[in-house]
C-alpha cells in the first residue's frame, strides 16, 4: 500500500480518531482517501483481523525497522525483531487504549523496549557500544541521517521533526540519543561521556523540553 508523504496538515488527530488533549504533531503519514486510520486498524486488530495487521505493517514497518536498527545496528537481528514486534502488536493489541495515546506511539514504545531488551540479551552490547563510540566521536551531533536520501515516504514529517531536534546543541542531542535509542540511564550516560551526572540531567531536561516545546510550536503553526 502506498503511503503519501505527510502534508502540512498533520494527521495526528485524524489518525488517532479519538478525542484527547492537544497533542504534539509527530505527524504520521498522510493516508489515501478512504484508508482506515491507525486507530481503526488497531480496533480491527483487537477484533483479530489479520488484514488490519497487514495494513499496519505496510504503513509502519520501515519506521519500526529504522528504530530497531538505530538500537541494535544489525540487519538480520533487526528483521527478526521486527517480526517479533509485529507479532507482539498482534498479541498485545487488547492492551492498547486510545485514551492513553496514539497507535504509533504505542507501537514505538513497544518496539523500543523490545529492541533495547534484545540488545542486552544478545550480548551485542559491547560490540554496539564500540560502534556507537566511533559514531559519536565522528559525529557528536548526528542524531539522524543526512537529509539527502531519495525516498519520499515520511519525508515532510521527518524534516519537520529533524528541524526541531537539530536546534539542540550536540551535547543535548547526544544525551537524548543515548537515553532513548540506547536505553541508558543518566549514570550510564555520565560514565560513557565522562560528564558529571548533574550536567547529564540538565542536558536531558533542557533537550527534551526544547523538543517538546518545538513540536508543540510546530503544531500551532500547522
Amino acid at each position, binding site marked *: 500500500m502506498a503511503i503519501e508523504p505527510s502534508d502540512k496538515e498533520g494527521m495526528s488527530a485524524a489518525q488517532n480518531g479519538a478525542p484527547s488533549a*492537544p497533542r504534539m504533531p*509527530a505527524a504520521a503519514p498522510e493516508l489515501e482517501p478512504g484508508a482506515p486510520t491507525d486507530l481503526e486498524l488497531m480496533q480491527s486488530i483487537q477484533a483479530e483481523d489479520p488484514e488490519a495487521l497487514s495494513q499496519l505493517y505496510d504503513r509502519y514497518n*520501515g519506521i519500526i525497522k529504522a528504530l530497531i536498527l538505530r538500537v541494535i545496528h544489525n540487519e538480520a537481528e533487526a528483521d527478526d525483531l521486527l517480526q517479533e514486534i509485529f507479532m507482539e502488536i498482534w498479541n498485545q493489541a487488547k492492551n492498547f487504549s486510545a485514551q*492513553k495515546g496514539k497507535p*504509533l506511539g504505542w507501537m514505538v514504545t513497544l518496539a523500543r523496549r523490545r529492541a533495547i531488551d534484545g540488545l542486552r540479551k544478545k550480548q551485542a552490547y559491547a560490540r554496539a557500544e564500540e560502534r556507537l563510540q566511533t559514531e559519536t566521536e565522528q559525529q557528536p551531533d548526528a542524531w539522524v541521517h543526512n537529509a539527502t536520501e531519495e525516498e519520499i515516504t515520511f519525508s515532510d514529517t521527518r524534516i519537520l521533526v529533524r528541524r526541531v531536534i537539530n536546534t539542540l546543541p550536540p551535547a543535548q542531542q547526544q544525551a537524548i540519543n543515548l537515553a532513548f535509542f540506547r536505553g541508558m540511564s543518566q549514570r550510564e550516560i555520565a560514565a560513557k561521556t565522562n560528564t558529571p551526572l548533574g550536567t547529564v540531567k540538565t542536558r536531558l531536561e533542557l533537550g527534551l523540553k526544547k523538543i517538546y516545546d518545538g*513540536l508543540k510550536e510546530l503544531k500551532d503553526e500547522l
Partner: protein
Amino acid sequence: MSFEEFQNRARLYVIGALEPEETEEFEIARKEYAQQAEVFISQCYDLHEAFALSLRPEKTSDVLKQRLMLMVRDRQQK
C-alpha cells in the same frame, strides 16, 4: 515538587531516564497532580513517536511480511 519540575521529570520518565531516587519522588508528585499529571505524561509519549519519525524508514523484505502473516494465521487457527 512544582508542576514545572514534574513536567521535566515526566519527559525523562517516558524515555526511561529517571534514576531510581527520582522515580520515587516522581510517583509521589504523579499522585498529587492526578489527572493533570496523567494527561501530561500521555502527551510526553508523543516524544517516542517524534523520535521514531525523525528516522529514515528502512526497507524490509516481502518474505518477512509473508512469514509474519503466516504466523498470525497459524496463531488464529490454534
